[in-house]
Structure formats: C-alpha cells, structure tokens
C-alpha cells in the first residue's frame, strides 16, 4: 500500500495528472470531513479542499518524504482551516484548553472505542461537534487520517505531548457526554 502511494506521489511529482487524480480521489472525502468537522461550515469546507488541492499541486516539491503525503496534505488543509478561523474572527475557539494537562492522569479506552460505542450516527456527530476545536482537530486527524501522535503533532504544529493531552481530553469529554445521555 505504502509502495503504491509512493509510486503515485512520484508520478505526481512528474506532473502525471492521473496520479494526482487518484491521490485526490483517495483523500477528498476525508479532507472534506475534517474541514467540515472542524469549521462546521460546509461551503468553507469545499473551498478549503479546493485550496488544499491547488497548494498541493503547486508545492509538491516541499514534500520531503513521499510516504507522508497523507499527513502533508492534511497539514495543508489544517492550515487552511486555521486561516478560515482567523478570517471569521473565531480565534478564541483555538485557545489551548488549560484543562488538557489534567486529562493526562486519566487512562482509559481509546477515543475510537468510544466512538464505536455510539449507536446513532447523528448523536456521534453532535458529540464530536461539541468538543473544543483543538481536541476536535486531534480526534478527527486520529480517526479520519489514522495518523499517529507524531504525525498529528506535525500537522497541528504542536508538541506530541499536547496532542496526547488533547486526545485524552476528547476521549474523556465524549465518555462523559455519553454517560450523561447527551446530546
């Protein structure tokens, strides 16, 4: 799989349009789900995906490791999301949650297990949407992209410990909401 990805990226570097098409087709829905989950703005999410594709094509030379194309592409989309937040004056939502550090104490099931336990999709969306933006970002990157902590840290430009803290906080918040019967 990774060899195929690397071959595709190598072909894309050589301006192979079919390779780009295949790569974008593989990532487009996950990128959109990430942007939509983070911003909650469907129209802006389409714009973010388009801008991410354009920047990926024009900046492919900045990708050092072909095997990390996915996290690199999500990183571009993440930056566009942050730009969207700045444009819409929602920087306050991006402030680091000071309680993140406390969540490190509580070890529990993986957040993906909590998500799996949700019986209704709509309830799951509502739960995720209620998480603070930094936690939501880490959780979505973990679930949608399947990225390890190091990759998420690189995408979000934060230390690995911060990512771990955010994931724990997201997990605990989801568990609390589910136990309370929210939403």
């Amino acid at each position, binding site marked *: 799989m990774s060899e195929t990805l690397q071959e595709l990226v190598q072909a894309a570097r050589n301006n192979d349009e079919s390779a780009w098409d295949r790569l974008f087709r593989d990532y487009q829905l996950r990128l959109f*789900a990430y942007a939509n989950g983070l911003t909650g703005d469907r129209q802006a999410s389409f714009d973010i995906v388009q801008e991410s594709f354009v920047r990926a094509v024009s900046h492919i030379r900045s990708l050092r490791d072909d095997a990390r194309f996915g996290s690199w592409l999500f990183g571009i989309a993440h930056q566009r999301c942050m730009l969207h937040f700045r444009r819409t004056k929602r920087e306050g939502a991006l402030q680091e949650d000071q309680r993140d550090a406390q969540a490190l104490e509580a070890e529990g099931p993986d957040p993906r297990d909590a998500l799996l336990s949700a019986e209704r999709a709509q309830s799951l969306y509502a739960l995720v949407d209620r998480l603070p933006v930094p936690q939501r970002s880490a959780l979505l990157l973990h679930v949608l992209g399947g990225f390890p902590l190091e990759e998420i840290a690189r995408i979000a430009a934060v230390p690995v410990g911060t990512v771990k803290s955010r994931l724990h906080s997201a997990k605990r918040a989801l568990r609390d909401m589910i136990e309370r019967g929210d939403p």
Partner: protein
Amino acid sequence: MRRTPCDWLLERDRDALPRLDAIRQTVLAPERATLVEAVVEAFRQDRAAWAAMACVWLVLAAAHFAVSPDNGSAPKWSVQLPDLAALTLSPDEAIPPLDRHS
C-alpha cells in the same frame, strides 16, 4: 461487516462526493483553471495599476489619432510649427566645402 469510526464520521459528508469530484476535476484542468484564475487574479490584485495603464493608453491613442495624417484635417496646433521650406538654404547661402588644408 463492522463499521469503523472513520466510516461513521464519513457517513455525514458522503453526499458531498459529486461536488468534490467536480472540484478535483477543476483543479486538475490546468488549461481552464489557471488561465481564468490568472486573468482574474491579475486584474483583482492591481486594479489601480491596470486603471492607470488604461488611462495612459487612452491618452496615447487620442494623441495618435489627433496627429495622424490619415485623419483628413490637420491638427490645430500644426499652424504653430515653423515652415520647413523657410528653413532651407538658398544657393547663395550654401555652405562652402571645407578646406582641409587651411
């Protein structure tokens, strides 16, 4: 088959696929996308410069048509020009050839 958390999260946005396909095709159609975007972007970013340049060209074009011999009528300010015939020297006033020995 058990659905993964990723499947659950993608379910909500699956109806966006047709538009995402269109976006992908637009981005990967360089002839159409880049030309239109380049023109729009060039005019959008430097509108003042483009407007100034257009004004300069209008002035130059107006001046050109005003002095053009094909215009039929001579420009009004041409009467103020000196008569070139009066500037030509008569045979008596011809300048003698240079004496290279003197």
